[in-house]
């Protein structure tokens, strides 16, 4: 910015600091953002973290690897199964456990249902931030069906602990298959309704278009992944970039947009739901018979000494687990790379000079889950 000292001092004089959060209706959890405002423009932003820190990574260093599974679900409560999936994938890779094919199919189906559920909640909550109250009611109506389907098979509604090293804890039945098929049909029929109610709405267009623009270079600098990165035109998705599980067998697209603004990531998420439905449909058609747990998983899972890494595509971006083992059944170090943390770090640069109401739009488009940032 070309500003001489005098005007800078003068404008500093008019600036004031505003706390957004830690408990603010438009931050979903205890995230605090220090805003330095000049009139209604946010000139500096500083996210303050740590209100929900629970030392998950440290806990992992103190107990057997298998016992950490329920903790993974608590990190991102909206993508619990996908976090389970990543961790199970890591341990299977490290200990060389073969997973039965049926278990992999069940994992993919439930993970994708979880992804749709996460996007639906984001959809409702985001529009709630923007001041539209009704859409969350429609989104939760649909989301409730997924929760019921998953509750029937996993036993919980939000923080699932369903995957095990070598498979899943419970087999799915015919009821699951029929209700999932019914749900696919239902959600497909609801998409035009969402289109009419929200996506075409002029107020939404005005609030999202050209707000919070990202470029692929900026994303690369901050490590921004997920729908935000795909909104800038880069088709980076861990399910394609580094295929895991049985994803290579399925035919699906990676939705991308080119503009990189809030509207782009909004549309990417919306179209991702459709792609997830496609994956579920194919997986249900090809569901093989067989066991859902590997036959020989040692009770005490010893990880050979070395470094291991496993990445999966979480609803918000790339999730990586990095495990350093010293040969025992307790990890020496477990590092979790969560997408929201990197996505949040772009905020100060992305939102500089924005109107305060646009900051809310841009922050909502990041789809932040605060426990995942703090862990």
């Amino acid at each position, binding site marked *: 910015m070309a500003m001489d000292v005098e005007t800078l001092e003068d404008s500093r004089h008019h600036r004031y600091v505003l706390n957004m959060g830690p408990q603010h209706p438009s931050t979903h959890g205890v995230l605090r953002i220090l805003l330095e405002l000049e009139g209604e423009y946010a000139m500096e932003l500083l996210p303050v973290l740590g209100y929900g820190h629970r030392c998950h990574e440290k806990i992992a260093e103190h107990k057997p690897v298998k*016992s950490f*599974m329920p903790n993974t679900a608590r990190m991102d409560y909206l993508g619990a199964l996908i976090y389970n999936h990543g961790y199970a994938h890591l341990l299977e890779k490290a200990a060389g456990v073969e997973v039965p094919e049926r278990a992999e199919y069940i994992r993919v189906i439930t993970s994708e249902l979880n992804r749709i559920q996460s996007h639906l909640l984001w959809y409702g909550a985001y529009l709630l931030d923007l001041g539209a109250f009704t859409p969350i009611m429609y989104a939760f109506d649909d989301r409730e069906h997924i929760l019921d389907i998953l509750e029937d098979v996993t036993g919980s509604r939000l923080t699932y*602990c369903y995957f095990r090293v070598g498979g899943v*804890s419970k087999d799915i039945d015919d009821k699951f298959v029929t209700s999932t098929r019914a749900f696919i049909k239902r959600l497909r029929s609801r998409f035009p309704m969402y289109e009419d109610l929200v996506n075409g709405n002029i107020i939404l267009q005005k609030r999202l278009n050209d707000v919070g623009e990202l470029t692929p270079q900026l994303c690369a600098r901050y490590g921004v992944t997920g729908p935000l990165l795909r909104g800038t035109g880069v088709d980076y998705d861990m399910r394609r970039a580094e295929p895991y599980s049985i994803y290579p067998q399925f035919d699906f697209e990676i939705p991308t947009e080119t503009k990189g603004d809030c509207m782009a990531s909004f549309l990417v998420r919306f179209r991702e739901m459709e792609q997830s439905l496609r994956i579920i449909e194919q997986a249900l058609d090809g569901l093989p018979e067989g066991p859902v747990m590997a036959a020989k998983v040692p009770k005490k899972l010893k990880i050979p000494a070395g470094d291991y890494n496993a990445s999966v595509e979480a609803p918000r971006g790339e999730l990586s687990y990095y495990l350093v083992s010293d040969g025992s059944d307790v990890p020496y170090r477990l590092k979790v790379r969560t997408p929201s943390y990197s996505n949040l770090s772009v905020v100060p640069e992305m939102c500089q000079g924005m109107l305060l109401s646009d900051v809310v739009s841009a922050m909502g488009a990041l789809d932040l889950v605060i426990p995942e940032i703090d862990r």
Partner: protein
Amino acid sequence: MKSYFSELFTGAWSLILGLKVTIKALFTPIVTCQYPREKLEITPNYRGHIDLVKFADTGTHKCITCGSCMRDCPSDCIVVDGEKREGVKGKALTVFTLDFTKCSLCGACVEVCPTKALDYSNEYELAGYAREDFHYDLLKRVEERE
């Protein structure tokens, strides 16, 4: 100028389309449930806190006090203890408590149990005034249950 009016028109039309959805929803059946007054049926697979199973053939639980659940619990919320009694093979169960405030419902205890003596309860209406309200004595619960 022309784009101004066309935007005005498309904008107004988008709002009317949205209202159409809302009005249509007004005539669809109610999807919510008035919770305390009416309750939805809960799936039998729901995982509440763990409970000792009462077996009909013996009229009691089947815990052999091996302590596998206690060892496998990631949060150390189960305490199992037993004593040697005359005429009873192995150890007889004297203490089985669960600190539900620490439990994360992972299911490790239920899966590791060699006699399938543990199962999930279906309780979901949990509220209390003190932490101790969630320290369950499972042995007492299984004896009191019909």
